[in-house]
């Protein structure tokens, strides 16, 4: 039996954060993970995170993963990979499968950060090869460099479904439809909008009737559902696809805590069966902690803070720090955690129909049902102004905890204020220089630079562009509107890339002035080919 001060199970964002924090106070820490690589889900998150500076906002997930590993290394955290924890016992002993043997370890404190597993929805044909979890698709693409298919239908409009759909497009797949049985999009409107403007159609109040094919998926039939979730006859729609991705929620993997005898609760808002924890993530068994998705499904940013809190609490439990230090350190982290849990997508608002923002602006039903604004709605929001010359147009309409745009603008044109869920306000008097920092900083890709005085009769629109190959200056193609429909021809007049933009390229296209508030995406392709 080998002893440690703290044994952490799971080397994801929560587990690593806890391990780093505990090791900072001198605890001898070991982290077990059943995977061959550390980082949990972080290394497949290629998108920029939300939040504010303290939450590592606008940094891509995999870069946060690298930072965490560096920290773990720096503070002497021992990470043992390919190590499957098979059992957790009340006296804080764990049995671990390493290679072809079982080994016993004992911790004075234990932290379980095993995360969550993907849910599935059964329908006719759901066991055919080609029906996969959205998380699995993301692992294939972003960790192993393999596309799961060419033509894909996504079930689930939460952030996972939206983000993975976008990454599928980036990997060169076609997303034929995004389907959800709910009547409104569950994830962030900005994530939906960046899909919609590439032309991905949304089918809300729809469900999968069957997957077709004998040896593998060759097609799928969906249908509209009524309020009782029954398919309405005659609404069936068929798509040729080779893959169906399911992004229908996650369930905490809390079995280790349950077998150790922790008091559990069944909480649908937290994703299912979770341990009952105090504010420090401590379960009903003293010295046994839980952090991250295993104690309630959220996202990586909050998992990292929960991990840090639990790591500090473990240090206090073992006498490495006193109670005063604990409450000081945890106080700051708790306020960071609380700010992430504010706004329309907060736990207490799940399942609620929110019609107005905190500021009193109408929430666009069109955005929630189709994935994009109607043009006349856009002007309602405080980030959208009409100005002479170049200026930022911020199509941000939901109270989500995110504020990098405010810090990005060197001219202080963009104001969010103390509350990080507030909608960004564009100050018309601050004098936009057109630098584009805000466009690249927006994790939701919701900021555009519009100049209606670009040239006689022509406007320029600068948009965030994260696809390869990158169009070149002088290239002609189509301007697409928010729904992904072609509205006019467009010419690329500028392409900007910069380390400061972190792989978000800025594409400036020239369009007729009347299209300045319509054109939101660019697609290469000659007009001739389209006319034939």
């Amino acid at each position, binding site marked *: 039996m*080998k002893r440690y001060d703290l044994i952490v199970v799971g080397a994801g964002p929560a587990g690593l954060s806890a391990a780093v924090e505990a090791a900072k106070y001198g605890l001898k820490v070991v982290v077990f993970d059943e995977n061959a690589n550390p980082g949990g889900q972080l290394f497949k998150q290629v998108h920029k995170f939300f939040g504010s500076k303290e939450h590592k906002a606008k940094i891509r997930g995999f870069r946060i993963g690298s930072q965490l590993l560096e920290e773990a290394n720096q503070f002497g955290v021992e990470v043992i990979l390919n190590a499957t924890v098979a059992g957790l016992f009340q006296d804080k002993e764990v049995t671990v499968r390493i290679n072809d043997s079982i*080994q016993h370890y004992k911790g004075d404190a234990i932290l379980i950060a095993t995360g969550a597993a993907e849910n599935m929805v059964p329908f006719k044909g759901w*066991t055919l090869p080609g029906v996969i979890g959205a998380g699995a698709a993301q692992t294939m693409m972003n960790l192993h460099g393999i596309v799961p298919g060419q033509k894909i239908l996504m079930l689930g409009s939460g952030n996972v479904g939206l983000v993975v759909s976008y990454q599928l497009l980036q990997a060169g797949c076609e997303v034929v439809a995004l389907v959800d049985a709910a009547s409104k999009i569950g994830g962030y409107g900005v994530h939906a909008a960046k899909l919609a403007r590439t032309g991905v159609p949304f089918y809300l109040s729809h469900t999968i009737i069957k997957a077709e094919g004998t040896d593998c998926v060759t097609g799928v039939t969906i249908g509209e559902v009524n309020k009782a979730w029954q398919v309405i006859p005659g609404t069936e729609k068929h798509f040729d696809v080779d893959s169906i991705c399911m992004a229908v929620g996650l369930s905490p993997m809390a079995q280790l805590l349950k*077998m150790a005898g922790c008091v559990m609760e069944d909480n649908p808002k937290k994703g299912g069966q979770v341990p009952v924890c105090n504010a420090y993530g401590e379960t009903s068994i003293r010295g046994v902690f839980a952090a991250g998705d295993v104690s309630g499904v959220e996202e990586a940013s909050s998992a990292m803070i929960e991990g840090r809190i639990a790591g500090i609490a473990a240090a206090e439990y073992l006498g490495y720090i006193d109670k005063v230090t604990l409450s000081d350190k945890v106080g700051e982290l708790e306020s960071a955690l609380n700010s992430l849990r504010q706004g329309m997508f907060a736990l207490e608002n799940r399942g609620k129909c929110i019609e107005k923002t905190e500021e009193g602006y109408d929430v666009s039903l069109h955005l929630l049902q189709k994935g994009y604004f109607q043009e006349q709605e856009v002007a309602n929001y405080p980030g959208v102004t009409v100005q002479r010359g170049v200026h930022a147009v911020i199509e941000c309409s939901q109270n989500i905890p995110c504020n990098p745009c405010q810090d990005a603008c060197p001219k202080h044109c963009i104001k969010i204020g103390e509350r990080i869920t507030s909608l960004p306000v564009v100050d018309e008097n601050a004098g936009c220089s057109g630098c584009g920092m805000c466009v690249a900083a927006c994790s939701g890709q919701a900021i555009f630079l519009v100049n209606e005085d670009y040239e006689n009769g022509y406007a320029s629109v600068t948009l965030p562009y994260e696809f390869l190959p990158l169009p070149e200056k002088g290239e002609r193609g189509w301007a697409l509107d928010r729904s992904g429909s072609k509205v006019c021809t467009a010419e690329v007049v500028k392409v900007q890339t910069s380390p400061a933009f972190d792989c978000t390229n800025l594409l400036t296209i020239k369009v007729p002035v009347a299209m300045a508030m319509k054109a939101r995406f660019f697609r290469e392709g000659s007009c001739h080919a389209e006319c034939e």
Partner: protein
Amino acid sequence: MRNVNDRSRDIGAFVPAEDDELLICRCEEITKGEIRRAVHDGMFTLTEIRRYLRTGMGLCQGQTCSKLVKEIAARELGIVLAELEHAASRVPMRPIEMKVFGNEKEPGKNA
């Protein structure tokens, strides 16, 4: 809360449904119809269903189906999800061959 375990409770007769052939537990190849029928055979808890049908006892250890089995059983029993307790969690958490499970080594000796 009603007593879910009250075996004298009348849950009605088993009514065949169109989707009874739907595979729910992929590892052990158990269908929705078999799970529904098990409830009518008197298996009122998830642990009983698991012992009766082996749902969730295959390679994935219920990672995919345990939530689905719970939903099907709760509906058949006419109770809400929260009233149905999860099946017991036991060692080993992941499937492990007996030869490995029985092969205990001192930590760090075979690294």
